[in-house]
């Protein structure tokens, strides 16, 4: 089961993408304007955002 944080993170991402914002700086800025924060509560940066996505994306393809 995804956590409520994961669902909220997904909701915000979908909303931001849905406004046509698809570039990394734009997405990070929009996420900071939302209520979703990493576990420590700090603002998102490009490295922290991409690291979080890598963590949440789970295991890679297996061939």
């Amino acid at each position, binding site marked *: 089961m995804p956590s409520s944080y*994961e*669902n909220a993170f997904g909701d915000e*991402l979908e909303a931001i*993408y*849905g406004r046509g914002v698809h570039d990394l700086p734009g997405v990070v800025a929009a996420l900071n304007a939302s209520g979703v924060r990493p576990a420590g509560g700090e603002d998102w940066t490009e490295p922290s955002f991409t690291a979080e*996505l890598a963590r*949440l994306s*789970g295991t890679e393809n297996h061939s």
Partner: protein
Amino acid sequence: MNPLHTTEGLLRFGLRDRWYPLCPSEHVRTGELVRIDRAGEQLLLWRDAAGTVHVQEDRCPHRGARLSQGVHMGDRIACNYHGVQVDAEGTVVSVPGSPGCALEGRRVLRTFPAQEHAGAVFAWFGVDESAPPATLEVPAPIAGGAWSRFLCYVEWNAPYLYSLDNLLDPMHGAFLHRNSHTMFAGKREAVFQIRVTDTGFVFEKTDQRGVNFDWVEFTHGGADWVTLEIPYPDTAGPGGPFTIVAGLCAISENRHAGFFWRCREVSGWERDSWRFLYRNRLEARHYAVLEQDREMAEAMPADAWDRENLYQHDIALVRMRRLLKAEAAKQAARLTEPATAAPVPVA
């Protein structure tokens, strides 16, 4: 007569001289003997100590007991009935009840060339089982490289041919899936054309692309593949359109296995974002769309093909069926031709 020697039977269970995806790789766990029916054959799947997967007929060469009820011995299977041991090549390596008997050393268990790719087990079913298989060629989205993918595996209570028809019928997207997250847009009227390729054909709308389910490609060679593309809404984030590579395999006349590799050409953080969203929510939406197809296919009458009135949107089906039927007829003829007799010397 063996249905696999008739045109009709080959069509219903799947033509020979092809690779078929049988099941997801994870269905065959180390140390286990897996029994499945596919493409008109009763199969045993197992992995040897090295993890290599083997596909053989689930039929003991002694008296026909199910080898799948036997004992996995690492590099061989021992039948549970009288202990006959058969290896991965199909050779009887031991007859414990009658050591030295003529069955020992004989290669008598039907064994099908097997391979794993993109998370699935594939096997080759040849017209001539002693001939080597063709190379397994796979469409680009599951060949590796810049694509990210997830395999969706389903079993439906419908002939595989109905699924194939469904995949080659892009126009149903604008109707059956009109309320979906991906296929709500675009025209409800379309003119299609067929474009022949080196390996099959592309069936495409002439006046709309990238809006709905606007084209599909049938690839026909060592395996049959259907590749199609459906645009994503902005909410799916950056990356290419949603692409599906489909492979089908009959389980019985009225049941089949469907492999839908869901793919996207996307890299870096965009790839991670798609993989996260896919797991968190998109998979459930894609699955709901696939359920609409399943409900339609499973409820089709058994004689659907006999009473159709096809129109322009159905020309890809007609072409695909004609191709399969012609090949099935050729294979049936090869499979039933009498062994050529030695010429009689004229005195």
